[in-house]
């Protein structure tokens, strides 16, 4: 029995949880976690399909790329969050309204 569809169900669940976190949370770091969950769901799919690509390993290779990109994105996002916090003393994206001092 193949577990490919099981992988995909898990991935779908994670993705929707990620969407829920992104939509509902009022905290930039939690939103970031939601995004990361979504990215991970995608990576899971990549890896699951990549199992059957033995020659080019495209699934795994792009999973690696995605992980690296996610890490880079997190670094930049956290830097932005820190900066925003320094300016506005809050990390609730809804409260960051003023564009200029």
């Amino acid at each position, binding site marked *: 029995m193949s577990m490919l569809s099981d992988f995909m169900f898990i991935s779908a669940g994670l993705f929707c949880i990620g*969407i829920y976190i*992104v*939509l509902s949370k009022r905290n930039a770091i939690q*939103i970031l976690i939601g995004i990361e969950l979504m990215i991970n769901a995608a990576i899971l799919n990549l890896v699951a399909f990549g199992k059957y690509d033995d020659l080019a390993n495209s699934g795994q290779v792009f999973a690696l790329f995605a992980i690296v990109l996610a890490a880079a994105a997190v670094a930049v996002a956290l830097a932005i969050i820190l900066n925003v916090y320094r300016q506005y003393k809050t990390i609730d*994206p*809804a409260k960051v*309204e003023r564009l200029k001092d």
Partner: protein
Amino acid sequence: METVLTHSDISVIQLAVTAVVLPFVAFLLNLFIVPRQSKLSGVLSGLAIGASLALSVFVFFEVWNQPALHVQQIWFTVGSTQIRLGIWLNNLSVLMLLLVSAIALPVHVYSIAYMKGDNHYTRYFAYLSLFCFAMLALVVVDNLLLLYAFWEMVGFASYLLIGFWFTREKAIQANKKAFLMNRIGDVALLTGIMLVYTHYDTFDIVTLFGDHSLATAAATATATKSVTIAGLCFLAGAVAKSAQFPLHTWLPDAMEGPTSVSALIHAATMVAAGIFLLGRVYPLFNTEVLTVIAIVGCFTAFMAATIALTQTDLKRILAYSTISQLGYMMMAMGIGAYSSALFHLATHAFFKCLLFLAAGVIIHEMQHLKRKHRLHIDAQNINNMGGLRKIMPVTFITCCVAALALIGFPLTAGCLSKDGILIQGFAWAEGKGWAYSIIPIGAVLTSLLTAFYIGRLMFKVFFGESGLEGISADSEPEAHEENPLLYLPMILLALGSLFPLFSLNPLKFESAWIVKGFADMVNKTESSGELVPFLISALSVCVVLIAYGVYVRQKLQWLKFKGVLFNMSYNQWYIDTFYNGIIVRAVVGLSRAASWFDTYVIDGIVKLIAGTGLVLSRISAWIDRYIIDGIIHSITYFVKQAGNFIRGFQTGRVQGYLFTMLIIVLALYILKTFI
């Protein structure tokens, strides 16, 4: 000139090279490794020069009166021209090698004591070693270019050493002056080298001036104009380095350096480099040039001697004496007394070096007195001295030997060399017309003047009463001349100033081995040869006695210390004044004119262009501000209004956007699936 060299010859050359390089090693060590003010540096340099001396002695005995040794290798190639460099050891080279190291060693030893406690002890010895290296290298290289390089290096080391106490304004001025004066000569020398190169197509000294050389043939046969000019250029180089008229004024000022430096460089070795140069390129000179050399030498000798008569600064007197003696050598070169010139060079090195070292000790003593009694006097002024023979017997005796040698008193080395020059001078002038005999007569006069000024020096310093009021020197109870490192070199040099080192026969200069070592350019003479020395010696003694009468006995008051002649002598023939007044002022005036031109003419043009540019830019600014900006502002106004209108649609909430997007995706999917 490729000669087959035996194995021992190669080792001799290697030893010679080692002798040259050793001081350089000492220089590098002192410069980079030895800590400041380390006692080690003096010992290091002394050991290096000592080793050089030992090697030089060996090399000397291997080469002297043997066929010259010569090795070469290719230095670089330009086009098809190969420049070779190498070592040429002939009689002249090894004599200079020996002389330089032999003089340098006592000076090093003396310096170890003399410079003790100086803040820049290591630097001093580094410079000294650098000088020794350059000087030794200068005498052995076989290539004019390299010779020029070391010539410059010698000058540079001299510059460093004159300005050694660089905190003294006068020392800075003096070393600048020396450097600039030397530069004039160096430029001339370089020109000479270039002329020689264009004429003979080689820099190789051996090819040019060795046996069967190009220049020998050229000078005798076809004396072209360029060769004459090249000879004059070489002469000018030698004149600058050996402080001959008219480029002599740097040497008295150079006395601002440490006295040991004066002894080594400005009395014995570096100034002799000019004479050496003449000796090296001797075959180049034709009769005209030789005559010029003789005239310059004779005049310098006479002029310097007259100046020395009235100076009061101890070191300055000696400096002028040096100039005078160098003039002697120059003159000897000019009259063809090649061997005698070199002989005098050697003997003079010993006794003049000794005189300077003695002066150093005396000045030391005077400074000691000055400090002890808190006086504000010039420690170098001979008027302040007197009676020092009792407290400084060793200095006195050695000084006497040196002074007698300088006068040319029989039984001293100076007697031999000086008489040689005089005798050959008379021989040379014989049968050439009365005008030529001015030169030997001038030489004799100079010799008498020499006797007078050195007598004055000796009497003022060592005899009579102290020039300082209320202080009798002999009441000083403490021990003087305490440091053997100070007077040991002096004793050695004093022994070197006596005749046995040079000749076993104290009366006949031809028997001196240096004279025998060089083939003379003048025919041997016998006429009046025996008479002249005795005559001059006798006259000299008379002159010394007069000096004794004047300065010790205080008789003969009719000798005026005023008047035109005195002033002329005292102010050094107004040569410095002349230089400052005419040449310096002319240069300053020229630069003022150039400055005026720059300020008013060139700047004016520039400002005019700038003003035009300014006006143009004002116009374009107006266009920019009102026409172009106007267009842009009107565009932005419209954009702004449009933006204000659209702004209402954008909340800036990412979550809102995402939510909207999700709703749309859902709606689309539902529409697509179910409808």
